[in-house]
């Protein structure tokens, strides 16, 4: 009904305009930010590294669990990706270091029925992703940001990063993933946010 409504007197700064190549990287309804905003639903958990583990469980032949040291020894790489948060900010060229979900899943034998991945975190946070959306280099577990250990308020010691989805899918303080046959809405997905969260389709809220 209101697709062509024009707001009286609004011109806009076109901060998200600029060179064509930059504009084409900004999903609909987003604006560019230079700092790194923090959004969390509760206090920042602090698990000592000596108690930290990362577990893959669910529909796998044999669950696996890595200590922090073992996790650091997994093949890692640098990632430069654009991130969009559902609260409207987009940050370009964020530099991370971490382990791809592909590499993590090489550590287990996946049951054929596995179709969804549930990421779970310290503090009880969860988020759900279809398995095909996190394979082939589409997702990684990061433990460095901009050349330094990932800060606790940004999800350190380690967080999931799924650049092709709104940032709530990039679970902070991740401690493991569970493979399932059935989908299971996570924390924000159960509170009115979109189940898939593709920023290019502007899937912010349930029903979008």
């Amino acid at each position: 009904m209101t697709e062509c409504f024009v707001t009286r007197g609004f011109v806009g700064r076109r901060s998200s305009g600029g060179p064509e190549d930059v504009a084409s990287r900004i999903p609909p309804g987003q604006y560019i930010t230079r700092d790194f905003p923090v959004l969390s639903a509760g206090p920042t958990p602090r698990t000592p590294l000596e108690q930290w583990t990362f577990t893959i469980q669910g529909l796998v032949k044999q669950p696996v669990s890595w200590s922090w040291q073992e996790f650091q020894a997994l093949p890692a790489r640098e990632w430069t990706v654009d991130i969009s948060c559902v609260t409207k900010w987009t940050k370009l060229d964020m530099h991370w270091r971490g382990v791809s979900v592909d590499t993590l899943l090489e550590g287990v034998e996946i049951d054929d029925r596995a179709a969804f991945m549930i990421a779970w975190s310290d503090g009880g946070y969860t988020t759900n992703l279809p398995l095909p959306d996190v394979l082939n280099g589409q997702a990684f577990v990061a433990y460095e940001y901009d050349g330094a250990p990932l800060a606790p308020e940004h999800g350190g010691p380690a967080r999931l990063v799924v650049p092709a989805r709104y940032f709530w899918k990039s679970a902070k303080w991740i401690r493991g993933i569970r493979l399932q046959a059935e989908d299971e809405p996570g924390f924000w997905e159960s509170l009115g946010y979109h189940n898939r969260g593709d920023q290019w389709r502007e899937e912010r809220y349930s029903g979008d």
Partner: protein
Amino acid sequence: MARPLDWQLATVAGVHDETDAVRSFSLTLPAWTGHRPGQHVDLRLTSEDGYSVERSYSIASEPERAPEVDITVERIPDGEVSPFLHDVVVPGDRLEVRGPIGGYFVWEASQPGPLLLVGGGSGVVPLMAMIRHRARAGAMNPTRLLLSSRGPGEIIYREELDRLSATQDGFQVAHTLTREQPPGWSGYARRIDEAMLSEVLDPLGREARVYICGPTALVESAANALVRIGLAPSQIRTERFGPTGT
């Protein structure tokens, strides 16, 4: 598939200055389904040539005011949206809005027990929706607002908070002014810290539900301090107002 949150054409029913840099807008919504205190709306502005921006704003008013909702907007000098709202929008204008959005940072009077609200600057806005709703619903649960502002002229909703604080219904506000205090100031005069939170929490007890909203540094330090004091992380809900809010 859930019912989509459609964009609605809200009419600006009123504009009200809270401080020099903070202004509230009352919006009348044609198809409002009601909200819970703490939720927000999305606003979309579109120019003649189709350029469009969106921002989220917390709802400041209580649900009982439906189908009218207030948003309170701080003017960010180099922002794209807040200067437009402050300098251009007048009563009678129409704005595209959808909501309500968010289902975690919410409190309703049906939730019993002591309540601690901690706000920094315009982070008080969603807390104000809870406070107004609490008063309107006649709730008597012990409630404290600890509000951090820079100076006396920057306290948002000051008169209303002080008035509600004087009604003896269990609500009290404690102010801290971090940069500038007027002569004879009897409130706190420093950033929110563990000792301050302990004092404000004391009459409520350790079982209080806590809602914290403000800039990241304030939210981080207040939430961490409350965990150190002994509250369970699950009692504490947070919402951030980053410096990017334009």
